[in-house]
């Protein structure tokens, strides 16, 4: 069965391109467009990996990550956090919230694909 990846970002274009490249690599993709939606979807579908943007309406990525990582049911789901370069200083703050990896925007989609593969094979 195909591995499930949840993409959470308020930028539809980014979600669309990531979805395309991941689906081409035979992953099952689910999308959410704000933090709250992302959190609910994560709980609902139990994905194998989450790609999570930081700056989002309603609930930011840090919070989503923290809520998931502090819950034993979801804490093992790998989270790849997408940050703007200007937020680099937040990186360390984010690591406290448990994200597994950071990818700074703008990113190369092939690089993201590689990282996803490294977690899910």
């Amino acid at each position, binding site marked *: 069965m195909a591995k499930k990846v949840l993409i959470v970002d308020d*930028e539809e*274009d*980014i979600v669309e*391109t990531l979805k*395309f*490249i991941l689906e*081409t690599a035979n992953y099952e993709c689910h999308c959410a467009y704000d933090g709250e939606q992302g959190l609910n979807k994560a709980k609902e579908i139990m994905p194998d990996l989450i790609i999570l943007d930081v700056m989002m309406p309603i609930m930011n990525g840090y919070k989503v990550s923290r809520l998931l990582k502090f819950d034993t049911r979801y804490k093992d789901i790998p989270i790849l956090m997408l940050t*703007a370069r*200007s937020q*680099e*200083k*937040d*990186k*360390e*703050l984010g690591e*406290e919230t448990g994200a597994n990896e950071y990818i700074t*925007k*703008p*990113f*190369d*989609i*092939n690089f993201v694909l590689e990282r996803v593969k490294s977690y899910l094979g």
Partner: protein
Amino acid sequence: MSKVILFSKNNKKLDKITEMLKHHSVSVFTDEETFFDYLKKDITSDIILVDTINLNDTVNICRTIKFSTQVKNLSIIFIVDKNKNNKDFLKYASAYVCEPINEDILNATINSSVLTKNSLDELAENNAELSTSLYRLDVLNKTVTSLAGSLDKSELIEIMTDGIEKSLSYQLCYSLVFNDPTDITLSIQSVHPISARLEEAIKFRAMLSYKDLFNIHTTKEEIKVIKKIKRKNDFEYDLNVFNFDTALAPINVKNKFFGIIEVFKEKEFKSEDIRWFQTLVKQATFPLQSAVLYEEIKEQNNKLEEMEKKKEEFFSIVSHELRTPLTAIQNAVKILLGNAFPNMPDRANLFIKMIERNSIRILSIIQDWLDSTQAEKGKLSYNFTIANINPLADSVKQNLSNLADEKNIEFTTEKADNIPSIYIDTQRIEQVITNLVSNALKYTPNGGKITILTQMMGAEILKERPFSMNLDRVIADEYIVVKVSDTGPGIAKEDIVRVFEKFEQVKGTLSRSVGGSGLGLYIAKQIAEVHNGFLWLESIINKGSDFYLAIPVLTADERFEMQLKHDISNANNDKKSFGIITLCEKNHSEKTYLKEFINKLNNENIFKRTVDSKSFYTETKERLYYSFYDTNMNIQIFNFVVQRIIDYAKKDEEIKNGKKLYLSQVYYPDDAGDAEEIIKKSKKLLKEVING
């Protein structure tokens, strides 16, 4: 005609003497008491003539006369009995005549006494004038000195009125100062308290004389009033003050009306007083002028700083906003160019590649904008590691060979294999090489040749290179050199220096058509300098240009010293007397002292001991604050450390008074010694820099 007071108990003699003194005005007394009373009030007489014959207690009366008189230099002439033996009382006299009185002698004596008195009076008057002048000169001197020491307008006005008060002794003084139409200050200085209606009246008086200057809407309520009352008592000045003598002077600054000052004095002002008053006011106008200019400059400066800040913000926001959609474009293009659509026609591929190429170009321009504003502030972030430059040259070649192919340019690398690994920021150095090569790609015509060459260069050879550089900056025996050569049009000698300036593109030949931010080489130079290296250019017109990047081969220790020296002297040059040196430990988390340091951060004593090295700063008057930080350390803890240092430093008077803190981050290399050693070393360096 002189004014003579005549005292005698003998009425007959009185008449006789009065007759003799018919050319003078004579007041006559026969009774001692009335005589003494008169003396106590009299201030206009010239001569006292006393008949001492027939007095009961001559000595006593004579003494009383001498000490009762209120007139200065008043001559007392006694009429005495020639035969009387006891003449003690004569010591109270200016002169005496003997019985029988000779009219001529009496008149001559009176005349000479009057002459003496007049001379003495004149002398005293001159003396008094002289001392007043001296006193006023002293006041002027002090006032001018104080005026020179201030650039604060209200303080200047205060110093001026102070000086006027000291030398003119007025009862009331007011000054009205226009800072601008909405900021008008009336300051009143008075000996006695003033009534409310007098205050209102002064406001009106000041406004009415200069009503043209007031905004139509200005009401007297908008005038700020500052009162200084010398004596707090029941007596109050009222409108009667307007009956006093007054002197008024306008205060003009740069030929523009700035304010007025008016003084009130119960007695009349003398003409010198008025002149004096005007001199003092004039003296104040020069520093006031400076103060106004100073304020203008300060305001302008603030505006400029504000604008600069806004510009930076704007750049930063625009850049970030632009980057997001550009990334989306690039990713979409990557999908199109990838394996997903194998049946894409070649012509479509060509145009998609065009989209890719141009979006890369826009992104690099945006990155340059961001970097250049950061580089200007010395704020480009660096991340030093031990690395070799050769792979960087390869990486640049790989990234840019597509562009070279398009122009059919032969693009090669020649790497020396004896290049040692050194302490560099690999990303930044790659950025420099990329900038040099993109620059070469821009200017090299189709079919040309570009080479990246790495080599070692001894300091001796470096010094002989044909470019003007500060030889003091050659700090190592050996340099690693990256040379980027092209077969472009070359750059004329006079243009070479400008190439590395901001927004500079060499004009002429085919250059104007070349795109780019004009910031690449500027940023490259900044990065080279942070690595204590050099970036220079050698060029022959119509043959090509060679760009050189030279980075010194330093030991970790040497590099640390270099950066610390650089930061400390920066702090010194900016006249910021406080250097906060943040020593960033890299990959040192296993070392116990660092762990301890972080763990005990909450312990005030430990922190203070580390920060506050008294023995050191009492010696040099300069202060150095330390904190250690592991790059793996939580950013919040790091910020906490920095904040604590700043809080601590803020207790210092000089920092409170507006001197800025210089915050520097020094990366201490991996093979560093322990904390004690680092502190010792930085102290030594700081001392060296301070002592020149």
